[in-house]
């Protein structure tokens, strides 16, 4: 069985060794490969699961994808504790060590620039949801307002739709304001597509899904800023995730090789 190289991240040489039992994808420990003063953090993974075809199939298997994404994150997260890693996209696989070395050589300058730019920074994820209360509202209103006529009924309906639209609009305005405030505080910001409720299992409509690049030293204030934001608009929920490695700010999403 041939082993391929699954690479999680590129970083500068670590001052402390990796955790002895830092488990990566497929339950395989992560190790370092140093080249040209940079290190690639990788696992030796079986070809039968990580070669192009099996990998493609596996990526469509939700259970496999979940386990692999968590394992990838587990390694990158551990690195975040000791250095500023430049995370690679999930599923970046090389044939052998020499392939990894060539990749480092080819992109050395890009990597160094990105690592300098991201040094000491982390990514925070902020999502805003507008609570969807139509059902609750409908139940509440029914006893108080049984329509006396068709015209009453239409009037009520209009009112309800207007209230609903108004809340949606308020939530959008809230999200825009929050994004502006957080962008002003952060060094950089990225908007992700709103999450599909079926995928996320979250309640409410996702009106903002963003990432912010913040120096680690200013993160506490950033979190407070997010924390305070939620209080001033009812019917809106704010969720914070992080700190993440700067996945959304690698700035190297275009393949150069």
């Amino acid at each position: 069985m041939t082993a391929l190289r699954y690479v999680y991240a590129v970083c500068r040489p670590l001052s402390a060794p990796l955790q002895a039992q830092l488990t990566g994808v497929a339950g395989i420990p992560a190790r370092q490969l140093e080249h040209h003063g940079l290190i690639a953090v990788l696992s030796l993974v079986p070809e039968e699961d990580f070669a192009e075809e099996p990998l493609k199939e596996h990526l469509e298997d939700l259970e496999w994808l979940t386990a692999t994404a968590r394992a990838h994150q587990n390694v990158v997260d551990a690195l975040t504790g000791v250095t500023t890693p430049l995370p690679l996209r999930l599923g970046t696989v090389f044939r052998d060590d020499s392939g990894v070395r060539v990749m480092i050589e080819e992109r050395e300058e890009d990597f160094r620039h990105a690592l300098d730019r991201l040094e000491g920074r982390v990514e925070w994820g902020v999502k805003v949801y507008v609570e969807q209360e139509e059902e609750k509202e409908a139940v509440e209103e029914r006893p108080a307002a049984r329509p006396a006529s068709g015209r009453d009924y239409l009037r009520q309906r209009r009112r309800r739709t207007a209230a609903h639209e108004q809340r949606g609009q308020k939530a959008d305005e809230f999200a825009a304001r929050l994004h502006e405030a957080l962008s002003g505080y952060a060094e950089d910001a990225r908007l992700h597509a709103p999450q599909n409720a079926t995928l996320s299992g979250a309640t409410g409509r996702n009106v903002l899904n963003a990432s912010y690049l913040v120096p680690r030293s200013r993160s506490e204030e950033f979190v407070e800023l997010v924390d305070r934001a939620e209080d001033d608009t009812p019917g809106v929920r704010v969720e914070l995730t992080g700190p993440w490695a700067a996945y959304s700010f690698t700035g190297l999403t275009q393949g150069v090789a």
Partner: protein
Amino acid sequence: MIAVEHREIALVDLLDRLLAGGVVITGDITLRIADVDLVRIDLNALISSVNAQVPSPWPEAEAP
């Protein structure tokens, strides 16, 4: 209270970053990775079909 750090990270949040972010490396030296946008779409379809069949879909509770 917004602190979410203690909760297990949601798969969608992971995928927003691990499949849509990160450095993309292409070329002879890498195995060609699957088109992630396609993966994303298939994933949507996959999850919808899973949801349609069973009320409690995937083993989200599996801690690493």
